[in-house]
């Protein structure tokens, strides 16, 4: 049985990534000094420029304030897509990065399933009493589309996108047709938001 320190040491990126070269470090040093220098010059420009910058900042703050009010609505409505994907680039495929992993994946141009293909979404119990998943049932057309798409895509990835971001890209092991389960260990409020967001668009 390993201790926490041993587990962390085994997974420590500094232990298995190559050390940075002195040249890389010098380049980074120069970049930081130059950026700071440019920033210094920027703040020492004439007052008129400072005033216009201040006005711009006010405008940005105001727009952010407005955005923060509307962001609630954006989050509430979830744009859901399932797309076939490939591990390697090819003409017609769009490169994307899987959130939280940095791993690249290449998306087919057309989604297989979107919000309007979801006939029903519901809360389901998660792994623990306080967590929930979301079950999705496709309508008949989408189910048939999913089955056709996944049958010819076995062993290759399928990307799950929420609001345009690839949040997961599992490999298709068997054909998928009528339903899917999103297991994310959501809190109830988040799962409810996804349910209402997916079917509400």
């Amino acid at each position, binding site marked *: 049985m390993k201790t*926490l320190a041993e587990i962390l040491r085994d997974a420590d990126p500094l232990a298995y990534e190559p050390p940075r070269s002195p040249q890389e470090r010098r380049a980074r040093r120069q970049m930081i000094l130059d950026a700071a220098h440019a920033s210094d010059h920027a703040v020492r420009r004439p007052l008129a420029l400072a005033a216009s910058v201040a006005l711009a900042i006010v405008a940005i703050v105001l727009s952010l304030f407005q955005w923060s009010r509307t962001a609630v609505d954006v989050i509430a409505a979830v744009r859901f897509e399932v797309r076939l994907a490939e591990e390697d680039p090819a003409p017609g495929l769009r490169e994307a990065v899987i959130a939280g992993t*940095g791993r690249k994946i290449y998306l087919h141009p057309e989604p297989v399933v979107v919000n309007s293909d979801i006939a029903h979404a519901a809360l389901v119990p998660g792994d623990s009493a306080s967590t929930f*998943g979301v079950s999705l049932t496709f309508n008949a057309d989408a189910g048939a589309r999913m089955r056709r798409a996944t049958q010819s895509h076995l062993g290759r990835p399928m990307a799950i996108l929420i609001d345009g971001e690839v*949040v997961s890209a599992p490999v298709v092991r068997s054909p998928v047709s009528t339903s899917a389960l999103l297991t994310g260990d959501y809190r109830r409020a988040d799962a409810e938001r996804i349910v209402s967001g997916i079917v509400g668009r």
Partner: protein
Amino acid sequence: MRANPAVAVAVDGTLDDRRERLAALFDAHEDRLYRLARRLASSADDADDLVQETFLRAAKSLRSVPAGSAREEAWLVRVLVNIRRDEWRRAAVRRRSLALVDVATITDDSNLESALIAKRAVWAALDGLHPRRRAIVILSELEGMNAPAIGALLGISAMTVRWHLSMSRRDLKRLLERQIGDTL
């Protein structure tokens, strides 16, 4: 006496003075900051960005950076952890609303070697910790610092550090047991 070159440089002086002070801060602390940043971030590029942003914040507030190597280090480490915390919060909002979904009828990629999967599981578990708590775990478990030293670096009490460590061990045990078995 000029024990620390950074101390002797006027912080509110000319552009050259400011550049010299920033260069001195970089030379003295960049390696230490990168090591912490790399263990807080999910990639080397993210760690570089984190370190760069820390020094750019320092450049904007050179007057606020205290003199003395240990105090400089503590100031920079706190800024770095705070930047990471802000990123983590933004990502957490996205995670909660967008979620790290998986489709049960499709199994995830199992072609990777088990060691790589275990590493990913550990870092996924660490990603779930608040960056300050994660920093405390790293400083304690990987850098071997004791609670008073960590507290001094992060500007919190040793008791708070011990509490965070206790909570971290509990959270990591729960997360890692679920992902890579009964290892703790």
